[in-house]
C-alpha cells in the first residue's frame, strides 16, 4: 500500500503540473482567442469528462503505443509506466480545470486589460499582472478539482499503464485488488483516505468559488 501511495503521489504530482500549465494556456486560448474551430476544440477537450475512462484509455493506447510519433521519433515508450499513468490522469483531469479556468478568465473585464495596454504594459505583462491575478480563484478551483479527479483515475490508467505493483499500481487499484481478494480492511482504509482527500479538494474549491471579500 505504501508503494501504491508513492506511485499515486508521483502520478498526481506530474498530472497537477501538466493540468496547471496546459489547462491555463488552453483556458486562455478558449476564453480570449478568436479562431475557427474554437468550439470544436473546447468540445474535444471536454470529452474525457463524459466518455467512459476505458475509451479514453483505448485512444491513449494508440496515441502512445506502436506507431505513435512519441514512440517512433522520440523513442519514448510510456505504455505500462507511471509516466503513462500520469498522461492518462492529466487528460481526465484537464476538462474540470478548463471549465472553471475558462469561465474565470472570460469574466475578467477586457477594459482592465485595455487599461493596462494604454499604460504601456506588454501583452505578457497584461496576462501576468492583470488577467491571471484576477482569474486566479477560478484557476485554482479548477486545478483542485482536476487534481482530485487525477488522483481518483482508474479506468484509463488501467488500460494504458496496467496494474503493476510498485510501478503502476495506484491507490484506486489497491481498492479494486483488495476488495476482489476479500481484504476488506485495506479496501476500507484506502477508500476512506481517498474520500477524505476528495472531500478536502471539494471544500477548498467551494471556498475559492465564493466571491472574494474585496
Amino acid at each position, binding site marked *: 500500500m505504501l508503494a501504491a501511495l508513492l506511485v499515486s503521489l508521483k502520478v498526481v504530482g506530474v498530472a497537477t503540473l501538466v493540468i496547471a500549465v496546459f489547462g491555463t494556456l488552453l483556458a486562455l486560448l478558449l476564453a480570449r482567442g478568436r479562431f475557427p474551430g474554437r468550439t470544436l476544440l473546447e468540445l474535444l477537450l471536454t470529452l474525457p469528462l463524459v466518455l467512459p475512462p476505458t475509451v479514453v484509455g483505448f485512444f491513449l493506447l494508440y496515441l502512445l503505443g506502436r506507431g505513435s510519433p512519441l514512440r517512433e521519433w522520440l523513442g519514448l515508450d510510456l505504455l505500462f509506466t507511471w509516466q503513462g499513468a500520469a498522461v492518462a490522469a492529466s487528460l481526465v483531469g484537464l476538462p474540470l480545470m478548463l471549465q472553471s479556468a475558462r469561465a474565470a478568465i472570460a469574466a475578467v473585464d477586457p477594459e*482592465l486589460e485595455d487599461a493596462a*495596454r494604454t*499604460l*504601456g*504594459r506588454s501583452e505578457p505583462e497584461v496576462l501576468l499582472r*492583470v488577467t491571471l491575478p484576477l482569474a486566479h480563484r477560478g484557476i485554482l478551483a479548477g486545478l483542485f478539482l482536476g487534481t482530485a479527479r487525477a488522483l481518483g483515475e482508474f479506468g484509463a490508467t488501467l488500460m494504458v499503464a496496467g496494474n503493476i505493483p510498485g510501478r503502476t499500481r495506484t491507490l484506486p487499484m489497491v481498492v479494486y485488488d483488495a476488495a476482489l481478494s476479500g481484504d476488506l480492511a485495506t479496501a476500507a482504509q484506502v477508500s476512506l483516505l481517498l474520500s477524505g482527500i476528495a472531500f478536502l479538494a471539494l471544500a477548498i474549491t467551494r471556498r475559492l468559488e465564493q466571491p472574494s471579500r474585496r
Partner: protein
Amino acid sequence: MKMDERLYVEIEKRYPGFHLQVRLSLRTEVMVLYGPSGAGKTQTLRAIAGLMRPDRGEIRLDGRPLFRCQGTRATVNVPPQGRRIGYVFQGYALFPHLTALENVAFGIRGRHRREEALSWLRRMRLEHVAHLYPSQLSGGQQQRVAIARTLAAGPAALLLDEPFSALDLDAKRRLQEELRQLQRELSLPVLYVTHSLEDAFAVGERIAVITEGRVQQVGALAEVVARPANRRVASVFGLPNVIRARVRCLSPEGLLLDWDGRELLAAPRSLPAGAWVFAHIRPEEVRFIYPDRPLSAAVRHNRLRVQVLEQRLGPDFRLVRVLTQEPPWAELEVRSPPSTYMDLGIAPGSQLEVAVRPAGIVVLETAEEAAEEGGG
C-alpha cells in the same frame, strides 16, 4: 500641418449599420467631443488609443504617425503600449486587485516607481487612501486615482470618456478645475468626451459636435452653441425654435422666408428663391411688445400675435412658451432676463404680440444640404 497642431485624427470605420468618419485636430487645449450616445465618441477614443483599428485614415501625435492606412493594409499601426496616449475609461477601469498606490504605480517604469506614484497621489490629495483597494474608495476618489494613474505613465495626450458623469456636482466641479490646471501645467492636448453641455462649458475651450458617426461642427464653444452649423447640431443641443421655411427672395433688409404662409425676414444669406431651409429663431431674440408703448425700430419686423402657454422662471432667465395665433400656429420659446416684462403680467393664456429682428433668425442649412447629409 498647422504649426500648433498636436493631435491629428482622420479615421474611417464601417460597422454593420454604422459608419464612423471622424476628422479632428487638437492643439494644446481641452477639446470637448460632444454628442448623443451611440454617436461614435467612445469608438473614436478607442481608435486614437490603438484599441480599435480603423479601416483607413491617419492618426498623428506631435508629428509622429501612430496609424496610417490609405489602401487596404496599414503601413503604420503603433500598438497601444507605444502610443503615449493616456486614456481615462468611463468606468475608471481601476485594477480591483491592486491598491490605489499600486494602481498609480502600474504604468510607471524605473527604480523610483513607488516614490513617483506617491507624489502623484499626494498631488491628487489621495495619500491617505494609498493603501486602500478601489472598492473601498468613493466615486470621486476612484476617479482621481484613475486620472493619477493615467498621468503617471507620462502620456503626451489625454483622452477622457465621460469622466465625471457618475459624480455629484461638488466633486465634479472640483475635479473639472483640477483637470484644467493639470492640462495647463502638463501642456497636454486633451479630448474630453461628454454628452452634457454643462460639463462641456466647465472644461472646454473648443467643441466638436459628433452625431451618427460624423463630426458636424468644430469651433469655440459659445460660438457653436450660438450658431449651430446645421439642424443636427441644433437638435443635439436641444435647440428650440428650429423651423422649416422656403426662401422668397433676398432683399436689401435681409432674407425673406415663407414660413407656412407667414413672411419672416431673416439674417441675410445668399440663397436661391424657392429653396427649402431650416432656420433657427433664437429664443433670446424674441421680444414681447408692450401694447401701450411706441414701437422702436428694432421691432419693426417679424411681428406675431401669440398666446402664452407656459412660463418658467430660473435664477437667471425667464422662459415663456407661446403659440402663434396665426399661421403657422407653431410653438415658440422666448427667453429673457428674469427682470424683464415684469409689468406685462405674463401668465398662461395671455394674448400678446412678439417681434424678432432679422439678425435673430439664422438659416442653419438648406433642406438639400440636409437631404444630402442624410443620404450620404
